[in-house]
């Protein structure tokens, strides 16, 4: 009795198969396609026709399958390892739809069964969610690390500032005493002694310059630039600055020319910092200029800005090194003409001061011809109208 109830009769099997076939044809989300020996579609279920958007009986299957290696090779599709692989079906209107296909040869016919993409979509969505979470975790870690790095940089700057400040005083003593030795008339030095003391004196000065630059850069990086702005007539300020810098230029027999437009507008600048910009640009130009060459300082009106430029006839900077110029401690391959030393901080300080004033700095250079550094200072709003 039990076995009779639980088994399916042979005639019922035929009916069940027929019902299943009908369900697959009309109601299933899976796709089902029967092909003849020439890969033409004999039958396709409603799901397949809905995807491709047309009736397909008699149409070659090749029209719908895209990006399959060696076109549509059913020999390959029938191979055991190909079962369940993704096959991309062209919809003709929208993006292709991918199915996991299973292929069976039945006599001269080929049966293709494509698993609904829902399962893949679910997998894809889960993967996307996981990726999103992982990205967020990485972003959280990144923000945390950035914060820690900011704290380290602040600590480094504080340390740098303190160390530099404490080094200044003993250095001042070394410079003063070496200067005293060099100028003392009652106890003249021998030539060898004088040479040694002069090295001591110039090295001391270089270290003071280095410390000043370090203090500047650490102050800027720690708490931003502190500017004491005031209305400044820049033309007379540049001219008086050039008078001092010409003394240095004369030592190397370098000519400093000026081309300063009259009636330049009054700018709101930090006077001391503006001079620092000019001093750094000029000392750079002097370092890389040869005897007899000319440095030209130009100041003129631009479009809504005042342009200050320092042009030299030095060896120029290779194009791939221009970006290095404004980075602290970064050095280019160009060497100074008089053996002058560089702290590697001057131009990065200039850049920060210029940007602190709302301006920008640009370097143009041609190897063998020279370099031009141009500072763009924006005009105060009142001057622009």
């Amino acid at each position, binding site marked *: 009795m039990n076995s009779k109830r639980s088994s399916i009769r042979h005639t019922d099997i035929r009916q069940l198969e027929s019902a299943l076939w009908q369900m697959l044809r009309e109601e299933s989300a899976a796709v089902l396609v029967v092909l003849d020996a020439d890969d033409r579609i004999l039958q396709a279920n409603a799901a397949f026709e809905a995807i491709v958007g047309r009736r397909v009986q008699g149409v070659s299957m090749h029209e719908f399958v895209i990006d399959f290696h060696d076109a549509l090779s059913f020999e390959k599709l029938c191979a055991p390892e190909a079962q369940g692989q993704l096959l991309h079906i062209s919809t003709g209107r929208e993006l292709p739809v991918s199915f996991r296909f299973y292929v069976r040869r039945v006599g001269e016919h080929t049966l293709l069964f494509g698993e609904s993409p829902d399962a893949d979509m679910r997998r894809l*969505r889960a993967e996307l*969610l*996981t990726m*999103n*979470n*992982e990205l*967020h*975790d990485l*972003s*959280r870690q990144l*923000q*945390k690390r950035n*914060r820690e790095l900011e704290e380290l940089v602040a600590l480094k700057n504080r340390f740098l500032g303190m160390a530099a400040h404490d080094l200044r005083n003993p250095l001042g003593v070394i410079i003063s005493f070496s200067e005293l030795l060099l100028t003392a008339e009652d106890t003249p030095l021998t030539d060898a002694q004088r040479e040694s003391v002069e090295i001591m004196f110039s090295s001391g000065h270089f270290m003071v310059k280095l410390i000043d630059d370090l203090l500047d850069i650490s102050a800027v990086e720690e708490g931003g630039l502190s500017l004491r702005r005031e209305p400044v007539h820049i033309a007379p300020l540049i001219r008086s600055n050039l008078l001092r810098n010409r003394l240095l230029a004369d030592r190397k027999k370098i000519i400093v020319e000026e081309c300063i437009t009259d009636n330049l507008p009054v700018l709101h600048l930090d006077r001391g910092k503006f001079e620092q910009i000019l001093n750094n640009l000029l000392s750079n130009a002097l370092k890389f200029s040869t005897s007899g060459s000319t440095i030209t300082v130009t100041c003129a009106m631009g479009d809504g800005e005042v342009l200050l430029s320092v042009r030299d006839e030095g060896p120029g900077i290779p194009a791939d090194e221009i970006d290095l110029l404004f980075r602290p401690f970064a050095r280019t391959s160009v060497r100074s003409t008089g053996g002058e030393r560089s702290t590697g901080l001057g131009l990065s300080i200039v850049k920060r001061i210029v940007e602190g004033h709302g301006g920008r700095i640009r370097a143009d250079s041609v190897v063998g011809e020279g370099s031009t550094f141009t500072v763009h200072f924006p005009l105060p709003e009142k001057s622009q109208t």
Partner: protein
Amino acid sequence: MHNTNAIPARLREQYLRSLLLGDKRDCAAIVQRLLDDGMPVRTLYVDLFQDALYSVGALWERNQISVATEHLATSVTLSLFQLVYPRVFSIPRIGRTALVACATDEHHHIGARMVSDVCELHGWDCHFTGSNTPVDDLCRMVVEKRPEFLGISLTLFANVGNLLQLIRSVRHEMPSLPIVVGGQAFRDGGLDILEDFSAVTYYGSLDEFEAFLDPTYRYPAA
């Protein structure tokens, strides 16, 4: 500055509405406004993020929104954490380390994130391993980071077996490491399964957890 920690009900409703619509921009504007007004991060987490997500969960349980909408709400919330992080990570460190993880197969992770950030707000350095943490990975992290405690979040009680396996494995590596368990999985009971383990404590609320982090912590006035 806010004199009160409460987020106005009107703003919470607006936030929930935008969250359900997936309107990230509006949600972000609300969060940014509250942050700019000096709203404490903890209040933001509990009274806005948590409150809204509990409402989203309740709507999903009543079949009033789809799982896709729930995922969208989670995704939007996740992106809003970015706005809060600058504040979270600016708290001075106190030199203590914690590790927070979600149990294996546990994909609900927002609560664990909040717990991690609350640790940071108390000055702890908290490593968060994300959702669905494999046992081996967690054990490796525990050995590597040497945290003072391990926090494990469990939202679905169905994953409780994974939680127990996680605890056993960690116990094997570090027998005396305090383990803190939290999450919605135990809101209807079932805590007895943790009784077999020593130094495993369940905290049912953020207040209890914060009191564990900092014994001087006082619960905010209701």
